[in-house]
């Protein structure tokens, strides 16, 4: 009935989908037990007193005393908001503690102290308070503990009632009403279970706790820890049956591990991922245990075995620590998962004997924490806490610290930075996306920042507040990104809100068993019967455990309701320029080679169809009908009124006509080698292609090498080469004719995407040509001065790009809708697509490399909600003819304080969105306008921050720490090809850079804007990442400044699409020999290009200029 296939194309798996689904539950449920357990301990710190305590303490905690009150107020206000929401979410769990069956009313008092917990506000302060006597650097100690030890303590605190007096006697004494504490372990059903655990390791615990972190950092786990692991490794599960949970937890790790390794074996595209993943088998066997604890935690009224009463709402907030996201992070050093995940994983790994993995994971957090400078102290603080004389106290504070990570980070994010005084602004590792300040379990399920990113991770409540902040509000989306792990759901009914059509997601609220409340429009909907059955646990009555509400990114197999016509087959048409210019550039041979190589790898199924069309001043069709002995060329010379010579034999089934296609591809390069035709009739050829494709839809790939000169769509050279470096303003950034735009819109209407490869040595008016891809959701590739002999670097790049292009995933006849919480509205879209209606993007083709951005405004006040959600739903036809819906949901807190808005600002996303806006501006207005607007954005921010938030009487440029890189990024942006003036820039290259800004995903874009520079010759293994027995050193990021370069060094600059290796004159010869294979500096060839995945240009010069 409903399946939960792991990665695969649905239909085939609907039978074994349930077993397969077992792959997911372990690591989904694992955390479920992990996290709830944390609430009781924290819950009894009590909200009301705590608020007091909090407000008094920050003075100690915050580095800048003047600022502290501001942030502090902001926090408490913020938390109030959170609380309202989270009461709903967590209250049931909390209720467990005082009395399992208490009526809802009685739960009110406990809920209040409890509510303060998710906010995590108090802990930091308490933590600091406690630590301060012992620790020299309190403010940054807590984040460390947050990452490192968070998971152990809650359970230990619970298991040792003796801790209570200690904590009570601590400075935070008034904060802990003891009332709720003793009842927590005892009253609930699992009280007995957890007590059994506490007997298992009651005495040893404190000492073990000391040992724990040590063990965590040591290479090999001491055997003794195995016994204790259950206690703290999966710590919080202590609330439920500890042994079972731990077993399950380890199973989860198991599964994770297997997936992990598997992800190495499997190719990137999940379509090619066939068969049941080995991990799921193992996980499957563990499924029953996983089900048991989960029911007891989340027992619904229907299941009264559990101690807690109505935990139906918890489903919406159930954490999923080992989501695909964190898995991905494990295998990819540049996408580190949240490190608290990793610590959770690390411990079990240790005990279950994955030494190599363990070290990798353990190293993980350390390097991860480098993201913010505050974490430099992390390692030490972790140790220090444990070496303190009062372990109980320190554990507790660490536990609090673990919960308090966010506000602490927020304080750090708000630290005023004087740009005139601080020189080292770059973090040692590439910047991570800021985490939204939502409760930890929401954070767990939240959408990956690589897929979905908001410029402000705290949404301002009103437009007035947004205006005051002087920052743009917008989303950056990369919806079709290649994913390692994606829950695919086959279900007869896809549950959606009845009024706003939002897909059910982890952030909805379950009011009771039968109803859920939409988190976007707040309408109360019924839960359909089918949804009551959970295929993951094979149990009934747990709608909140379904994969849809456990994952922020899911993919549905859509039914025929989601089709306007039967899913189209994959159809590819190649439109090749064969004029003299093209033959001269010599791309055809390489294209044919590449296509021949990848012919079988083209995404598609048995219905896949291909066609070829070549053009110079005439249009040549190729009849590849099955049964012909060789391909037939049909020439149409009437370019004013193009007609299709034969209707059924030009687009042929790839499988049936494979030999003919191969014949054609081998003979094509020779066919035109003697051509004298210099004209190019691109417009008519495109019209022909459109006619050929319109019955099916599909993808047209255009290869063009010069300005189109014949027929409709002919263009003139508009660029004046003498004006290339003029600072006055750049003309002709917009299209010269609307022909290509109209054609693109026609194509978009017929579900045809047009991709353009421009391989031109002269001006080809990309501004006009790019329109054909821009509005048909295609992609643009540009190879300036392409020549197969004279420009090997471009050839190399072309080949690599082409290979990726031909084999990457593709979605056909796609539409994407972006919905957001009532009150927010989208007003501008950036990217390649056609906006069909206010929130519907029509994407004829969708590919995994293109990203989108939208700008939003706050229409109505968001005061009545504490969370704002965004959902992007991409409906597409896969290359195998399956209709699928990929849904991403992002949940962010709503704040009403300017300081909170700044604390949550995502500088990278803001830079990218501003770049998009600037490009729009330069096309619609002028380049200098756009540049001014960018500079003004920085000026506005600085002045707004100075006047509204920072009340320091500090001179100089003061910005919040979260935005400290903003001026740098904007300056870098102004030096980009797209926006620079004064430097000679070809118009086409400028326009191409603009296209790139509109379509590249954020990570690439940021490296393009501000490349990562590393020193390579003196790398050490310190802080290195260990992955599968290979050591990946993690060199520090360097500022892009000449002072960082030295004669005796070798530096690597990663500019996203190209690596530059810069070798100093006095560089260590051994390094040169080992890395480049040349005996010494002098023997390095002047124009060395590596054939690695991405091109490497080596410029062995001291000039500091990279050679292109």
């Amino acid at each position: 009935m409903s399946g939960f296939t792991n990665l695969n194309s649905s239909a085939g798996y609907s039978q074994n989908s349930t077993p397969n689904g077992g792959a997911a539950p372990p690591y989904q449920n694992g955390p479920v037990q992990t996290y709830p357990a944390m609430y009781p301990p924290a819950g009894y710190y009590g909200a009301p007193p705590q608020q007091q305590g909090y407000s008094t303490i920050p003075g100690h905690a915050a580095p800048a005393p003047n600022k502290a009150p501001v942030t502090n107020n902001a926090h408490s206000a913020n938390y109030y908001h959170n609380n309202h929401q989270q009461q709903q979410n967590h209250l049931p769990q909390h209720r467990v503690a005082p009395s399992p069956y208490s009526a809802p009313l009685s739960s009110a008092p406990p809920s209040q102290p409890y509510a303060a917990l998710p906010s995590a506000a108090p802990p930091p302060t308490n933590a600091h308070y406690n630590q301060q006597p012992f620790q020299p650097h309190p403010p940054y100690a807590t984040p460390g503990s947050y990452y490192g030890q968070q998971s152990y303590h809650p359970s230990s605190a619970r298991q040792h009632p003796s801790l209570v007096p200690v904590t009570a006697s601590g400075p935070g004494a008034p904060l802990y009403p003891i009332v709720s504490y003793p009842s927590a372990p005892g009253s609930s059903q699992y009280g007995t279970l957890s007590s059994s655990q506490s007997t298992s390791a009651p005495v040893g615990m404190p000492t073990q706790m000391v040992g724990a972190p040590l063990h965590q950092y040591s290479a090999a786990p001491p055997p003794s820890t195995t016994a204790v692991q259950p206690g703290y490794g999966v710590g919080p599960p202590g609330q439920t049956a500890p042994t079972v949970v731990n077993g399950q937890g380890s199973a989860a790790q198991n599964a994770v591990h297997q997936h992990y390794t598997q992800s190495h074996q499997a190719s990137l595209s999940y379509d090619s991922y066939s068969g049941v993943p080995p991990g799921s088998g193992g996980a499957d066997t563990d499924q029953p245990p996983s089900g048991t604890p989960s029911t007891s935690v989340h027992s619904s009224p229907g299941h009264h075995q559990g101690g807690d009463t109505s935990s139906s709402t918890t489903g919406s907030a159930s954490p999923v620590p080992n989501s695909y996201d964190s898995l991905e992070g494990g295998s990819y050093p540049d996408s580190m998962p949240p490190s608290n995940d990793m610590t959770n994983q690390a411990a079990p790994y240790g005990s279950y004997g994955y030494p190599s993995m363990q070290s990798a994971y353990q190293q993980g957090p350390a390097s991860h924490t480098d993201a913010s400078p505050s974490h430099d102290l992390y390692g030490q603080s972790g140790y220090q806490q444990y070496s303190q004389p009062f372990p109980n106290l320190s554990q507790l504070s660490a536990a609090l610290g673990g919960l308090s990570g966010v506000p602490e980070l927020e304080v750090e994010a708000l630290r005023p930075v004087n740009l005139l005084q601080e020189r080292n602004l770059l973090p040692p590792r590439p910047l991570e996306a800021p985490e939204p300040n939502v409760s930890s379990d929401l954070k767990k399920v939240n959408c990956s920042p690589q897929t979905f990113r908001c410029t402000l991770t705290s949404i301002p409540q009103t437009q007035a507040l947004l205006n005051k902040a002087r920052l743009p509000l917008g989303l950056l989306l990369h919806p079709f990104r290649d994913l390692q792990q994606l829950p695919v759901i086959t279900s007869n009914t896809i549950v959606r809100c009845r009024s706003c059509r939002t897909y059910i997601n982890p952030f909805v609220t379950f009011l009771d068993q039968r109803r859920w409340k939409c988190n976007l429009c707040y309408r109360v909907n019924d839960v359909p019967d089918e949804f009551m059955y959970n295929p993951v646990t094979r149990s009934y009555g747990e709608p909140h455990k379904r994969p849809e509400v456990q994952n922020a990114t899911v993919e549905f197999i859509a039914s025929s309701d989601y089709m306007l016509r039967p899913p189209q087959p994959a159809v590819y048409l190649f439109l090749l320029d064969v004029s003299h210019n093209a033959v001269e550039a010599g791309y055809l041979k390489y294209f044919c080679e590449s296509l021949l190589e990848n012919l079988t790898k083209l995404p598609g199924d048995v219905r896949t169809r291909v066609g070829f069309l070549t053009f110079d001043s005439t249009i040549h069709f190729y009849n590849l009908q099955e049964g012909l002995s060789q391909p037939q060329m049909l020439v149409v010379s009437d370019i004013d009124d193009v007609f299709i010579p034969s209707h059924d034999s030009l687009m042929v089934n790839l499988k049936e006509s494979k030999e003919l296609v191969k014949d054609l591809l081998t003979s094509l390069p020779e066919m035109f080698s003697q051509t004298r035709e210099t004209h190019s009739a691109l417009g008519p050829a495109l019209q022909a292609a459109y006619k050929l494709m319109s019955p099916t839809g599909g993808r047209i790939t255009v290869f063009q090498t010069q300005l189109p000169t014949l027929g409709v769509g002919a263009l003139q050279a508009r660029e004046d080469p003498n004006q290339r470096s003029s600072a006055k303003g750049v003309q002709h950034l917009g299209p010269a004719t609307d022909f290509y735009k109209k054609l693109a819109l026609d194509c978009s209407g017929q579900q045809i995407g047009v991709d353009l490869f421009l391989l031109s040595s002269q001006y080809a008016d990309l501004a006009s040509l790019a329109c054909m891809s821009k509005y048909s959701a295609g992609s643009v590739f540009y190879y300036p001065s392409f020549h197969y002999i004279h420009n090997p670097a471009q050839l190399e790049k072309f080949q690599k790009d082409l290979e990726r292009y031909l084999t990457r995933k593709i979605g056909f006849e796609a539409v994407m809708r972006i919905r957001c919480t009532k009150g927010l509205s989208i007003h501008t879209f950036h990217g390649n697509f056609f906006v069909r209606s206010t929130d519907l993007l029509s994407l004829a083709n969708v590919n995994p490399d293109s990203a989108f951005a939208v700008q939003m405004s706050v229409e109505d006040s968001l005061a009545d909600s504490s969370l704002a959600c965004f959902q992007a739903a991409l409906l597409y036809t896969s290359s195998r003819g399956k209709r699928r819906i990929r849904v991403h949901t992002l949940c962010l807190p709503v704040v009403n304080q300017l300081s909170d808005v700044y604390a949550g600002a995502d500088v990278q996303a803001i830079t990218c969105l501003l770049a998009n806006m600037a490009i729009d501006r330069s096309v619609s207005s002028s380049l200098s306008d756009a540049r001014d607007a960018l500079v003004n954005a920085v000026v506005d921010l600085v002045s707004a921050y100075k006047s509204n938030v920072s009340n320091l009487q500090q001179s100089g440029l003061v910005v919040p720490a979260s935005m400290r890189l903003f001026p740098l990024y904007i300056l870098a942006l102004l030096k980009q090809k797209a926006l620079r003036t004064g430097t000679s820039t070809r118009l086409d290259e400028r326009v191409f850079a603009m296209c790139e800004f509109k379509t590249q995903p954020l990570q690439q874009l940021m490296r393009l804007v501000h490349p990562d520079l590393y020193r390579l010759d003196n790398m050490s293994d310190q802080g290195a990442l260990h992955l599968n027995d290979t050591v990946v050193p993690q060199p520090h990021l360097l500022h892009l400044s000449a002072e960082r370069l030295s004669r005796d060094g070798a530096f690597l600059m990663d500019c996203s699409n190209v690596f530059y290796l810069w070798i100093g004159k006095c560089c260590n010869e051994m390094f040169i020999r080992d890395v480049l294979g040349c005996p010494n500096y002098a023997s390095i060839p002047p124009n060395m290009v590596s054939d690695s995945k991405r091109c490497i240009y080596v410029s062995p010069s001291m000039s500091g200029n990279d050679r292109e």
Partner: protein
Amino acid sequence: MEAAVFILSLVDCCALIFLSVYFIITLSDLECDYINARACCSKLNKWVIPEMVGQCLSTMLMLISMHWFIFLLNLPVAIWDIYRYVKVPMGNMGVFDPTEIHNRGQLKSHMKEAMIKLGYHLLCFFIYLYSMILALIND
């Protein structure tokens, strides 16, 4: 003569009123997602020139018949219509461009413009009506 001028401008004004209403209806259809941007824009772009011509016509009529006040009332709108038409970027498909109409609040500003024009044309209508009656009585 006087009456004829005003009857003619009255008819012209009626046409412009209908056109404004048509613009508003079509734009609100787009706003409510009843038609897609492409259809909406091609519908509206067809009527941009007739609207401009109609507006210029009444302006010229007033100039020729030397009704300075009404001429000055008409002039800014006529200039705006011409300016709007001339300022369309080369690559755009007319004043209403389907690829941009959903961006940067263009839809809203078009809507606002159509509303203002409707009000303005209604005002003109009554002025013409009054002037026409006055002219008929004087004859």
